[in-house]
């Protein structure tokens, strides 16, 4: 599918087939979730030092569970078929997927030479509006604030037979110039027959 077609479907579904909610509710609610995880998940034998690796992992896990279900909604609304290659997948993720659910289109860039890994650069990120990371000297090194998005992609792509590694590599909240996520295709998952299936 051409990039322009992915964009057209994204626009169309966003306008006509998406139930919407005010962004600030999402921003506030997501911020509350992250801050409550930061309060709850502490390093062993401490009373207030957040285990940011655990927070990242939990956000990823929550996103994964969302992604597993969200892909159904995505397929139903967008009515797109299987992608022919990873380049097409990248375009559909950016211009259709992110458009439908978050009304943003991260820029696909930075393809690896083997064509198995690409970057998504977020010029806007509704999850992180008005957000500042805690000033504890560690969060800016360790917390990936929007990590739930990595989980969502991982879960959604797993349901369409793609095993991927998804991680943020930079975030403006940490003081980086860009917010960028890298998606790496590990393998296409083969359909396996259940054992003893006649």
């Amino acid at each position, binding site marked *: 599918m051409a990039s322009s077609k992915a964009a057209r479907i994204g626009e169309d579904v966003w306008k006509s087939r998406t139930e919407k909610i005010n*962004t600030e*509710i999402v921003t506030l609610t997501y911020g509350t979730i992250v801050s*409550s995880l930061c309060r709850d998940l502490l390093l062993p034998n401490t009373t207030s030092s957040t285990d940011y690796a655990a927070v990242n992992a939990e956000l990823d896990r929550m996103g994964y569970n969302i992604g597993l279900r969200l892909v159904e909604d995505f397929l139903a609304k967008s009515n797109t078929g299987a992608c022919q290659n990873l380049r097409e997948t990248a375009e559909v993720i950016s211009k259709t997927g992110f458009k439908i659910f978050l009304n943003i289109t991260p820029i696909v860039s930075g393809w690896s030479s083997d064509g198995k890994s690409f970057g998504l650069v977020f010029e806007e990120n509704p999850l992180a509006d008005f957000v500042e990371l805690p000033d504890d000297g560690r969060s800016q090194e360790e917390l990936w604030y929007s990590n739930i998005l990595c989980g969502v992609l991982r879960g959604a792509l797993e349901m369409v037979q793609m095993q991927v590694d998804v991680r943020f590599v930079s975030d403006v909240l940490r003081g980086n110039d860009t917010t960028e996520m890298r998606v790496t295709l590990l393998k296409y998952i083969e359909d396996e027959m259940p054992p003893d299936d006649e």
Partner: protein
Amino acid sequence: STTNEVATKGGVSSTGAPSTAAGLDDGTREALYFRLNNMGYRVGQGLAERFSTNRPRPVTPLETIKFICKDLWPLLFRKQIDNLKTNHRGIFVLTDVRFQPLSRVSVDRRAGPRAAEELVRRAQVYLVFPAGVIRGALSALGIEATVQGETTEIPTATFQIKTKGAKA
């Protein structure tokens, strides 16, 4: 405006955790409710601060409650509260006859009345966060209250607001 919105499928149910809430023991359920309610409180506080700025500040408790029913509720659930009752002594009951987070749950009718009871029990968890939102919004507007969400017949939800010093 469309630039200021994102997609939604409903309440706070996307992680899948609440659906298992009914299977939790009492202590765990209480801790879960406490946490969800406090998260709602924070969201409610933020929303009230953000969205009450361009309108006259409500001066009576009733006006404040009406702000919740007519302004805050549509932001969250795309509809107003359907019914507001008060005893004029500090207690308010808000009824939403088609509460969005409960609008698409279903029950296996063949499983009989017990299934319906179980469903109502399971639905309870979806009211905890919104109850916290109401409590937080009221607090931001200067009213201390306790808020109890309840459902006896899905998809109707009621929220009982007991302001500080209320008389039954």
